[in-house]
Structure formats: structure tokens, C-alpha cells
């Protein structure tokens, strides 16, 4: 009797993720297809775009660098929303979403840093400067890695969920503070070297490819995020099934 009740309870718990997996199965092929189309279009537009008269062809790195940088921040925002979802509404998928987003966010941040320094080498003559913006993105990257390390250190999702959510939120509050203090710290030492692209002065011939690329990479992010969430749900099911297998082997042994 009690077993039947617990089994029913488990099915209700699974209902939501199960629906998600079905939903993902339908949506993913379309989403992936659209992503590919938009990215291909964006790439084509990027190559058609004229070279900058000052920066030459290196300006094309911007077409992937800027979307990566945007997404690195968007991903953290999504993780923070998921963290609130975990802590406030205890939504079973929120935790999955946060955990799945962290490695993707870390990858986008790393790509933003790498493409940035590829651009910086010919522009500034060095791979890296401790500029305010670069430094705060680097700190963001460290926080992603810290969150990943925390989720991996605790193998029981029930335990790691809340801890990770709390850490994510503290990080979200902390990022503006870090950004602010880094700005202050940097201007104190090197006021002249803050180099960045003037946003509004960008020419439309460069702006359009950039926007298309940004949309393409955002779609790519959602595709990857959905796939990672599905994997995470499946991984948890494998764990649950292994526990059941261990228990059922016991029951057979004692009979």
C-alpha cells in the first residue's frame, strides 16, 4: 500500500519533466534548424560587410565577440531567475535549468574572452589588459567555474540545489558591485587606456550583421540549453533507476 502511494507520488513529480522532454523532442529540431539558418545568414552578412578603415578585417571578430559577451551576461541572468525559481517556487525544472546553463554560460564567456584577446592583440599589441570591462568579464568567468565546481562536488542534486541557487543569487548581486569597484580601481591607475568601441557610432553596414549574429547565437544558446536540460533530466533518471536496480536486486536476493 505504502509502496503504491510512493510510486504515485513519484509519477506526479516526474510529470513535469516528462512533459518537458516531450516538448523538447518536438521543439528542438525546429529550433536547431532555425538557429543554423540564422547563423548561416549572419556569417554570410558578416563576410559581405566592409572592412573598417581603421581596424581592417579584424573588425569581423566583433560579429562573434559581441554576441558572446551579451550571451555570457544573459546566461547568468537566466541562471539567477532559475535560482529564484528554485528558492521561491521550488519548481523542479528551475534547478535543472540553472545547472544546465552554467557550462554553456562558461563556454560563451570563455569564447568572449578568447575572441576579445584575438582582437586585442593586433589592436593593443597585447593579448590581455586589466581593463575594467575585461576584468569584470573575467571575474564572471571565474564565478561560472565556481558554480560548476559546486554543482559537481555534491552528487546528490537535492543537496546541491539550494546551495547553488544561493551562490548564484549572491553572485548576481555581487556582479554590479564588482563591476563598479573594478571601474573605480582601474581609473585610479590608468585613466587613459579604457579602450572600447563607441556603440551608437557604429555604421549600419556593420550593425545589421551584428544583430543577425546576435539573434543566431541567442537561438543557439536556447537550443543548447534545452538539450542540456534534457540531458540533465535523463541523467537524474539514470541515477534513480540505478538506485531502484540496487534495491530490487536486494529484494530478489532475500526471497
Amino acid at each position, binding site marked *: 500500500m505504502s509502496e503504491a502511494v510512493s510510486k504515485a507520488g513519484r509519477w506526479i513529480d516526474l510529470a513535469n519533466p516528462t512533459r518537458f522532454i516531450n516538448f523538447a523532442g518536438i521543439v528542438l529540431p525546429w529550433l536547431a534548424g532555425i538557429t543554423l539558418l540564422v547563423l548561416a545568414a549572419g556569417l554570410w552578412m558578416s563576410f559581405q560587410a566592409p572592412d573598417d578603415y581603421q581596424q581592417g578585417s579584424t573588425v569581423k571578430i566583433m560579429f562573434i565577440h559581441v554576441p558572446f559577451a551579451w550571451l555570457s551576461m544573459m546566461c547568468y541572468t537566466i541562471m539567477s531567475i532559475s535560482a529564484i525559481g528554485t528558492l521561491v517556487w521550488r519548481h523542479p525544472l528551475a534547478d535543472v535549468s540553472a545547472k544546465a546553463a552554467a557550462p554553456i554560460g562558461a563556454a560563451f564567456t570563455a569564447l568572449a574572452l578568447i575572441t576579445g584577446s584575438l582582437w586585442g592583440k593586433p589592436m593593443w599589441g597585447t593579448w590581455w589588459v586589466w581593463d575594467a570591462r575585461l576584468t569584470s568579464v573575467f571575474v564572471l568567468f571565474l564565478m561560472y567555474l565556481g558554480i560548476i565546481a559546486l554543482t559537481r562536488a555534491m*552528487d546528490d542534486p537535492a543537496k546541491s540545489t539550494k546551495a547553488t541557487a544561493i551562490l548564484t543569487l549572491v553572485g548576481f548581486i555581487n556582479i554590479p558591485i564588482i563591476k563598479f569597484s573594478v571601474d573605480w580601481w582601474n581609473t585610479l591607475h590608468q585613466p587613459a587606456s579604457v579602450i572600447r568601441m563607441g556603440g551608437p557610432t557604429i555604421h549600419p553596414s556593420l550593425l545589421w550583421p551584428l544583430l543577425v549574429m546576435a539573434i543566431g547565437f541567442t537561438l543557439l544558446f536556447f537550443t543548447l540549453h534545452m538539450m542540456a536540460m534534457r540531458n540533465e533530466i535523463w541523467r537524474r533518471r539514470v541515477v534513480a533507476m*540505478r*538506485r531502484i*536496480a*540496487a*534495491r530490487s*536486486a*536486494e529484494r*530478489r*536476493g*532475500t526471497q
Partner: protein
Amino acid sequence: MRLVAENLAGGRGGEILFSGLNFALSGTEALMITGPNGAGKSTLLRIIAGLLEKTEGHIRLDGAPAGFENVDAACHYLGHLNAMKPVLTVEENLRFWQLFHGIAHITVAEALERVQLGDIGHLPFAYLSTGQKRRASIARLLISYRPVWLLDEPTAGLDKTSEEQFAGLMRDHLKGGGIVIAATHLPLGLDNPQELVMGGNGHVRTRRWEARS
């Protein structure tokens, strides 16, 4: 083959727990060490295994098979802890111990079958229940050959059925000419084992041993 302990004394933290302890076991014989907590049962086992220094006395293995002249090398030790890594699967754990201990006896799959874990060898050790973990640990005794088994509360965490199965495994080992020394509170289901009662305060008597000699 004969395992002989003469005038053995041992203790922990400078305190002597037992002294003047003598016993001799030949192949096919079992020794049960009983007594209250803190009497020195585990200490005695660890001294035989060579993990603790004895205060005085000798332990030797007479007429040992080749390769087992040294007492430590001739012993399997099953302590309170299972010596298994939770993140590795049961099979990975056992295969490692088989390679490390050498002298393969039966295969890992056969050993798992003998302890009724045949189906779940592919699971990480962490997923197993307490009794299953203990049985996996017992399988470690089977996969590499050692003539002497040193068992510290071997049936802790086992249910009735598993206890009986384990008694069967011990009887097989004895039948093959092996020696079993077990510290235990419970009867282990062995035929006519010797019993060493450790009474605390260094007081030791051997019950059935005296009756038989």
C-alpha cells in the same frame, strides 16, 4: 600449515589490552574471538595482520604454501570499513583489488554471483545498501587467494540469509585448507570453531581449545 601465536601481548595508546595470549590453528580450523567492547578483539586482528606493532610475543606461519611465508602476505583482512570507492562501480573496485592483490582465485563475475550481487556489478558502489556493500566487500576475499582470513565483525549489516550464505563461504574456505579468524558477537554458523574469550583487563581464556587439547 599452522598459524601459531606465542605469548602475544598488545595494546593501544600505551595501554596493554591483553598479554600472554597463545593459540595455534592448523588449516581447516577456525577461531572465534569474542568478548565485550574494548577487550582488544580488533587490536588482536590488526596485530595479526601486521597493521599494529605487537608489544611482545611472536606470530608465525609454519609450513606455509610458497609465497605466503610472511604472515601479512598470507592474510585477507576484512575490517569495519569496506575498502571500496563509492564513485567506482562494484566490478571496477573488485577488479582493482584482484589485480593489486594478485593470485587470482575466481573471476570477479563468479565472486559477485557467490555473494548474490551478480546483477548489480555495473552499479557504482555508492548506490548499494549497507548489506550489499558488505557483501561486495566479502567478494574481495574470494577473488584473490589468501590462506588466512582475518574478519572483524564480518556479518555487521548482513541480514539472516546473507549471514548463512557467508557461513557457507567460510566453510568452503576451511574445507580448502584455509584458516579463519573472526572477531564477532554472533555465532557465525561454523562447525566446532575454537573460541578465544577476551575478558578485558588483559584476561584471556580459550574455551573449546582447552577442552580439545
